[in-house]
């Protein structure tokens, strides 16, 4: 049963993950939370782990969730499921449907999907930041400590640009925030 759920859940993720590595995160979050495979906290940790290990985030998350739900079999199933839609679509496009991509109707759909994905990513990011600074249960409350840490980490990329004239990479940001976490919590 869980295997079927994994298969179905990650097939939909694979089928709808247009665009770059982060585009799949709102989708994965949606699927994973609705099936209750991981809680919000573990999912966030796993995004961090996926970011710091090689490979596309989407595949890494599928492997981890599959493994945590149903061991080796689950991880293989979830990984295959998440890769399969794009595998089949690329083969189809290359073999017969080269012209489909430039079809104006297909392009019209993509023109709608791309800004939508950007919206979804921004919403997910905003909500995740919000979730960290506002404690929702019981009752609404703001954690001052988390606000300060959030502001601190938020400033880091800008500070790096300004004083070191260098862009900070995601992994460097994660390491810095891990250090900040160790000191403050």
């Amino acid at each position: 049963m869980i295997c079927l759920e994994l298969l179905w859940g990650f097939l939909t993720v694979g089928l709808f993950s247009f665009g770059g590595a982060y585009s799949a995160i709102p989708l994965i979050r949606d699927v994973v939370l609705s099936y209750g495979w991981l809680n919000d906290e573990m999912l966030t940790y796993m995004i961090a782990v996926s970011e710091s290990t090689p490979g596309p985030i989407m595949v890494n998350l599928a492997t981890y969730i599959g493994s945590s739900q149903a061991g080796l079999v689950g991880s293989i199933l979830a990984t295959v499921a998440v890769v399969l839609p794009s595998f089949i679509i690329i083969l189809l496009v290359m073999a017969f449907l080269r012209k489909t991509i430039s079809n104006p109707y297909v392009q019209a759909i993509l023109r709608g999907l791309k800004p939508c994905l950007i919206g979804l990513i921004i919403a997910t990011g905003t909500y995740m930041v919000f979730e960290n600074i506002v404690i929702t249960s019981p009752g609404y409350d703001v954690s001052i400590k988390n606000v300060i840490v959030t502001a601190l980490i938020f400033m880091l990329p800008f500070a790096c640009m300004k004083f070191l004239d260098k862009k900070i990479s995601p992994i460097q940001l994660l390491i810095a925030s891990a250090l900040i976490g160790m000191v403050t919590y």
Partner: protein
Amino acid sequence: MSIIADLFLTFAKIGCFTFGGGYAMIALIKDACVDKKQWITHDEMMDTTVVAESTPGPMAINCATFVGYRQAGMLGATIATLGIVLPSFLIIFLISCYLEHFLEIGWIASAFQGIKIAIGILILNVGCSMLKKMKKKLFSYAIMGCSCAAMLAIDLFSLPVSAIAVMLMAAAVSLSAFTVKDMSHKRGAEK
């Protein structure tokens, strides 16, 4: 060395060294497949990137499938895709066996508290830089704004609506807008 083994090893090597995925992998794939092995030409590589952008799935995997298919058909496509996925699969599978034990250690748990906050900011950052690259058209902004608001509402009030529904809506709106425009255009041409 047979082409199958070569495909597998080349893509496994790419799979081992690409962090964060996505566009970072493209440079590596270009270096291996266009410059060194000459499996595809530079133009074909550009072409593949365009196709990969318009189809679901991580670009690196799309590229691997394409190059594998060109070199050795179905089997090649399967082997190349397997090659690029396998390293990260093995690494994550190993991590998954130990992560929860790791998190029980005090200082690691507090490190992850900091990381947790960074992830939200990181995602927000990626969203904003994608927004900067987006076509500056009212229509795109409208769709972006509506989907962002819809997703925030879904998250905040835990509405039973999936992100896929929002995507389908956006696709439908864009498609019908185009169809209406196309039809009125044709009618104008007939007159």
